[in-house]
């Protein structure tokens, strides 16, 4: 059963598989059955990897039967965002330009999940190349929110978030460039973690904004999310931007009470522009932390974070315009049929015009513009300067507190087609982009509900900690979750 308080933890599921009370095949079959029954309604996945998953499950069960060591995620079905390379199935990034593209290699995160015994059961739908906040920008149609199928699940990792909420799998991987894990986690009522930049290898993650992108987990609980991050985190010689810092044991102190911790509550984050239910959830959480013995620090301000969206929409498209140049129709991916009088330029222009959707094209143009000679200094260079200042601002804030509390998104999930103009869509990420800009770690966890048109929609609260302080991030999140687990509701799609 998905939703509610009776979801077994991943550790419990693995214990069951290891002790042969259940089996990996059983778990995968249950997952596949759920996918089969709900996919027509939700469209969380671009591809279900039935054969692959059953085959791997049988192997894991056989290994257990032989008494071999299996990892911390033995037999756990996992859904993976379709912009993370897997050597089986397709990796399309929600784009027609990569329709049917099969990667010959696995992302480092996938290798590490599999080393721990996890089983990828499906590739999750997403906004094309992770550009969007609703999963509507997918060449394969939108994903629907399991809490209300007339609404979006958020994005860009909407398929991964909805899949976990709908019980397809206990966990999923997404990618977060400006909020693409946390915002859909908030809208789908699950936990979503954006690790510190450099914590998880990006090798095999199809790049959007290379200096901002991180792979991270979705799960029902903080502890489960920590367990999955534990598996994928760490230095990777194939990604020079991963940190050569040891990965601490995320579960070691996760249940240590928050007493004595200082939690920052910047006033500007509970803006009157937010949905009142969002602000209420944040303030209630602050009260809860105070009750649990933490000190609420209101004396922190992050004024420059107001410039986060503008900074982000220079840096991310700039990097994207270059990252997406490889999709040129020459070596793989969609290639336009040329008329006899057309030349190489037409091949590029037409393949890309046919292959990329409108939002991707818009961002390529934006990025190309801000990097052009004559505009570079005014936009790109300026954005890098602001980025440095935002980082410094966070450093100063973290001198006063251990974690910063705030909303994940300004509103609960909105109806499909509800944000027609790009700018209003961009503003969905107003509270999340700054963590990517500063490279710090952040997560969203269920913080309550909003009642909208007689429907209960989940609200996410966001916690942010300094770079590589995931242990504190999990610990703070875990305390709130422990106190509120009984308030969780079952996802109605169940």
């Amino acid at each position, binding site marked *: 059963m998905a939703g509610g308080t009776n979801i077994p933890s991943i550790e419990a599921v693995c214990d069951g598989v290891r002790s042969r009370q259940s089996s990996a095949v059983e778990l995968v079959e249950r997952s596949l059955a759920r996918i089969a029954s709900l996919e027509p309604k939700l469209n969380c996945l671009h591809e279900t990897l039935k054969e692959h998953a059953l085959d791997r499950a049988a192997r894991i069960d056989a290994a257990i039967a032989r008494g071999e060591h299996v990892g911390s995620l033995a037999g756990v079905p996992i859904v993976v965002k379709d912009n993370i390379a897997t050597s089986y199935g397709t990796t399309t990034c929600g784009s027609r330009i990569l329709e049917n*593209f099969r990667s010959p290699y696995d992302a480092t995160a996938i290798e590490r999940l599999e080393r721990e015994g996890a089983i990828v059961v499906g590739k999750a739908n997403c906004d094309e190349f992770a550009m969007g906040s609703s999963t509507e920008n997918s060449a394969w149609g939108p994903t629907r929110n399991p809490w209300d199928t007339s609404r979006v699940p958020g994005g860009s990792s909407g398929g991964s978030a909805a899949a976990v909420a709908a019980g397809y799998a206990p966990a999923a991987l997404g990618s977060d460039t400006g909020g693409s894990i946390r915002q859909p986690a908030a809208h789908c009522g699950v936990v979503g973690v954006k690790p510190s930049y450099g914590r998880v290898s*990006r090798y095999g993650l199809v790049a959007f904004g290379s200096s901002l992108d991180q792979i991270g987990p979705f799960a029902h609980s903080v502890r489960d999310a920590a367990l999955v991050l534990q598996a994928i985190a760490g230095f990777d010689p194939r990604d020079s931007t991963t940190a050569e810092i040891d990965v601490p044991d995320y579960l070691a102190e996760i249940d240590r009470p928050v007493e004595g911790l200082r939690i920052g509550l910047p006033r500007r984050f509970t803006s009157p522009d937010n949905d009142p239910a969002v602000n209420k959830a944040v303030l209630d959480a602050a009260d809860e932390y105070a009750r649990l013995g933490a000190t609420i620090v209101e004396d922190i301000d992050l004024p420059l974070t107001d410039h986060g969206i503008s900074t982000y929409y220079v840096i991310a498209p700039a990097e994207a315009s270059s990252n997406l140049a490889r999709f*040129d129709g020459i*070596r793989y991916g969609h290639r336009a049929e040329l008329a006899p009088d057309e030349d190489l330029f037409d091949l590029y222009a037409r393949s890309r015009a046919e292959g990329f959707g409108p939002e991707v094209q818009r961002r390529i143009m934006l990025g190309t513009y801000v990097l052009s000679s004559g505009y570079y200094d005014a936009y790109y260079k300026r954005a890098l300067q602001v980025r440095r200042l935002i980082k410094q601002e966070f450093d100063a804030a973290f001198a006063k507190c251990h974690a910063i509390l705030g909303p994940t998104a300004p509103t609960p999930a909105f109806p499909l087609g509800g944000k027609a103009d790009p700018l209003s869509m961009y503003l969905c990420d107003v509270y999340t982009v700054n963590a990517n800009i500063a490279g710090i770690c952040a997560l969203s966890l269920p913080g309550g509900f909003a009642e909208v048109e007689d429907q209960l929609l989940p609200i996410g609260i966001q916690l942010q900690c300094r770079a590589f302080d995931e242990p504190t991030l999990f610990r703070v999140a875990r305390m709130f979750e422990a106190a509120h687990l009984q308030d969780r509701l079952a996802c109605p799609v169940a």
Partner: protein
Amino acid sequence: MTTMSPATTTGDRKVARTRLVIGLEVHVELSTRTKMFTRTGNVAHRDHYDAEPNSLVDPVVAALPGVLPVMNRRAVEMAMTVGLALNCTVARFSKWDRKNYFYPDLPKGYQISQYDLPLCGDGALDIPGADGTTKRIGIIRAHLEEDTGKLGHELPGGLRYEGSLVDLNRAGTPLLEIVTQPDFDCADDVVTFAQELRNICRFLGVTDGIMQRGHMRFEPNVNVVVFDGAGQEHRTPIVEVKNLNSFKALRGAIEHEHERQAKQWLEDGRVMGPGAKSTRGWDDERGITVLQREKEDAHDYRYFPDPDLVPVVVDDAWLSRVRAAVPELPMARRARYRSEFGLDEKDAHALVDDPLLCRFYEACVDAVHLRTGSQVPTVHPGFAVAKLLLNAGAKRSNERSLPINELGIAPSQVAAVVVLRDEGVVGPQAADALFGLLCDTDAEAIEVARQNGLVAIRDDAALDRWVTEAIAAQPQAAEDVRAGRTAAIGRLVGQVMKLSGGKADAKAVNEKLRERLGS
């Protein structure tokens, strides 16, 4: 400085005299085992020279979705050694930038290069100028980047293909780009510089420098200062000639541009200015340059720092380790061979032309020292070995079409011949013959000399007989020597050598003649 002859006139323009101004860009493919940003084999490394098309390709080279570059430290070290050899400052902090443009030989749609913070900068190289002076050529920068793939229209086996074919073997080969100041004023100096640079790079072991394989490619920027005879100077627009991969083409392109630009100026009077830069290619068959692109500012590469790579930080320890590994460079070596060994410039050049030959030569010299110990030979071993290699060795090298260092004779054998010759155990012709024989055997030199009757004869009876015969045959020479005109002794020695079939020990013969003729 070259003068066009005679003064040429068109309309109201007149060329009295011209001066060439040339700056050079050189691309050197570094011979690392693996590519610049991935572990796949590098086509510029001799293990992979003849790799099948597209066999040196992995997901990173093909720019598959999701891959990331990882810097090859060895390539950075090689670039640093070249920078140090060119007296550059090695930057303690440099970074990687993306140069964005679309072309089918560029898989990522951008080339990783170094834009505003190159690894090496501000150096100079002294070269012997064509006018006999030493010319100092300024080095603006030397930075690392990755090479592109290749486009072709031929299938393996030579069959023509209608479309374009892409071979990515070369894509990602580490490429060092060296940019000089516009310090050249003639093609000869440019070629000397290019050859010297190739030699340096080969001594540093950063490239095999095989021109036909494109290990080095040159791009001269050429323009001409026209003096019109009326006190005015006119600078013609700068032309960049792309991708020259031989010294002949380099010289040809510069000389052709010299003439062409002066003529062009006569025709249109155009001078240097914004947007007046053009790019030309070299037509090797016709020996002319042809226009490729008129305006340089047509491209906006949208350079920005590559977020997938971390900056290159060179600390003291790394720099001193690299510095310590820089060997003695060709120019210094030639100077040492001249001053210490007494070689002339031509011989010094011949020995330093190839690092393998040079290493072989020095091994031979060391082997002589090992053999003679503290005994001082009459001729400096460096000199004696050089002469032997460049005479007996060069002869065998021609005959067998093999480099001198690959003839099969070992340095210890070369040393033995030199010592035997110095001690007079073998004569000059015998030394040459012995060298030839030792190319095909690893037997001891002295044994081979004995077996082949190459040991000089010092037997008193035999020498006395020949000396008597020689004096009888050349009475005038004998008379001259008796009268104190000792130079004439050479004729008598020659006579003895003739009689002995070249086997008499010349030194012993000399002594006997002097004794006999009382000089």
